[in-house]
């Protein structure tokens, strides 16, 4: 095991893949500076800066993947991926099906997501529900450095398009870059989940299969299901609830699509009460999908969801209230018991 930050773990997995396989390369805005260590190791042909042209450079990723490469196309923030929506929804997601002959699109779209650092409603979304809605793309969001590295390996080696969402609150570099954490006067310490931002990463990195969740904490009274930073908020809620004698299990989905439906049914059977904690919007997303999955599987646990119900406001106090914070999770659990 090596101790790494979340961002280091992702780049280490990417560097491993680039060293093993000449077909792996990366491009995006500012990547030569952001991933300067990769630039120094692999050169500007495989670490390419792009113009601010998401529509073209994400779509080009589809073409490059069809041409035999394994591109990791970086979109600085997932909010900007909306500019390239056609590349995801009309191309990456569809071409393997259209081909009818297994012309795969082994593309990784690496995009940063999420809030908690006051960047306003256009720079803090996660959008994973909308991304997962189109058949043909996998969507993952790791919550620890070890998962970040393992899922990056999986994403690069998968013979399909994977949207790899990297949560900014867990990424030291991006909190510094966008949240201005380099100022001695600003401290995100009370918001950043330490176990997510830094942790041990296996030296021999193994794939984490798409659609495989992991149980972060066992419990019997209520099941908390989440992904990304939400997992850490759930863990914090669970330890506070434990002090009151309430036993909460925490399931980290890791993949938004494919969804680990077996594990979801299992935790529902075990606890009979579920709270789904989603940093995405309420409608058309993960929380409804999980509810539908359970209903279709003949499960009807008591159910609450903690989601983002409005535009994410800028002012930190309003932002905190809007995002699925620990108090909101605890309130939802109490509401169920």
């Amino acid at each position, binding site marked *: 095991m090596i101790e790494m930050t979340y961002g280091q773990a992702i780049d280490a997995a990417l560097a491993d893949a680039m060293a093993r396989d000449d077909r792996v390369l990366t491009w995006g805005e500012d990547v030569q500076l952001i991933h300067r260590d990769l630039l120094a190791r692999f050169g500007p042909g495989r670490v390419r800066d792009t113009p601010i*042209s998401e529509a*073209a450079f994400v779509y*080009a990723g589809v073409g490059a*993947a069809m*041409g035999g490469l394994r591109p990791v196309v970086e979109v600085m923030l997932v909010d900007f991926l909306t500019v390239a929506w*056609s590349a995801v929804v009309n*191309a990456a997601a569809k071409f393997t099906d259209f*081909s*009818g002959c*297994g012309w795969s699109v082994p593309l990784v779209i690496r995009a940063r997501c999420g809030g908690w650092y006051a960047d306003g409603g256009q720079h803090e979304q996660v959008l994973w529900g909308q991304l997962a809605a189109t058949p043909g793309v996998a969507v993952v969001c790791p919550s620890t450095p070890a998962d970040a590295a393992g899922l990056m390996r999986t994403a690069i080696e998968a013979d399909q398009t994977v949207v790899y969402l990297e949560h900014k609150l867990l990424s030291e570099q991006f909190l510094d870059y966008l949240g201005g954490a380099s100022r001695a006067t600003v401290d995100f310490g009370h918001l950043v989940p330490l176990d997510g931002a830094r942790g041990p990463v296996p030296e021999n990195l193994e794939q984490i299969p798409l659609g495989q969740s992991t149980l972060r904490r066992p419990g019997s009274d209520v099941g908390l299901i989440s992904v990304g930073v939400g997992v850490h908020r759930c863990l914090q809620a669970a330890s506070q609830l434990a002090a009151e004698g309430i036993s909460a299990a925490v399931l980290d989905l890791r993949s938004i699509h494919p969804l680990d439906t077996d594990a979801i049914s299992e935790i529902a059977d075990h606890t009979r009460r579920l709270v789904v904690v989603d940093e995405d919007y309420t409608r058309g997303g993960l929380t409804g999908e999980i509810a539908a999955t359970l209903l279709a599987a003949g499960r009807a646990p008591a159910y609450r969801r903690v989601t983002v119900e409005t535009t994410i406001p800028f002012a930190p106090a309003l932002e905190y209230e809007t995002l699925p914070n620990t108090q909101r999770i605890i309130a939802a659990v109490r509401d169920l018991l």
Partner: protein
Amino acid sequence: MRSLVSFDPVEALRLVVRIRLAERVLTQAWADGRVPGEYHSGIGEEGIYVGVLAHLDDQDAVAVDHRSTGPLVARGVDLTALLVEVMGGQSGLNAGWAGHMHLMDRQRRVAADGIVGSSAPLAVGQAVAAQQLRPGAVAVALFGEGALNAGVVLEAMNLAVVWRLPVLFVCKDNRWSITTRTAAMTGGDPRARVTAMGVPVLTVRGERVERVHRAAGRLVRRARAGKGPGMLYATCHRPGGHFEGDPLLRILRDPRGQAGELAPGLLGGVQAETGGTGRERVAGLSTLSGRLAAAGLDRVLRSGRDPVRYARRLVPADVAARVRADEQARVAEAAAAAARSLSGLRVGGGEAGP
């Protein structure tokens, strides 16, 4: 470096004729209700496909737009499989998942995307793959002049310049963006946008297949040598309209019949109690009639620009006749084979009614 491909007029005629005959099979099948959904034919563009693609080998890639039959035929895709796919069979080129707007063949590195403009960035991506994995190979993007108003095309060209990619952008100018005159929707000469980015542009008449071949050859050679992208701007005529059943062409072909259908709505608009001023209403009507007049003029003035007729003149008459007979037999055989595998298929699918 690959050697230059010299122009072979007999081979060019053969392919131009083959594409036209395949298009005739499909446009007829569409009229007969045997092609489900839309169909965008490439009739009028054959000289461009053949002149450009003659330069490519199996290491090169082609990104195609919604007029995909011709480029795939020129690329050597199995004709029967293509026909079956477009006619809605499940044993076709793409197992029934694609239809004519998404035809693709991995072996031949050719794929269509029905979203206008997307062929440009797809070719850019293929060109990155060429640069990394197949040095000397090129990627070609086919799109219409209407796509030069799509931001993603200009973004893709800029990316191709700054990454010095081996891309040939092929813009087929038929003067129409769907059923709107492109000139009315375009500020300035769109070629100037492209040259301003440092992409050399060569303009040719698209029906003149040997001129297309020569100009494309210069840009392909440049791209293979690592000197970056170029654009071939080939003008052409679109006698079949945007797609089969094009409403403008329906009016031109049957003005009286169509007038009966259109007049009540137009009259209702003109006579409505509320709405624009009299002048605005007149301007509305004259906008429509101007568009019809432009389509009618195109039909008259540009119908002489036929790539098949042109290519026929490049070879002796007896050779042309033999090529035509060969290709008729070939396409008829493919169409018959396609019909056999499609027998019993109904447009719309589902269970047979009572």
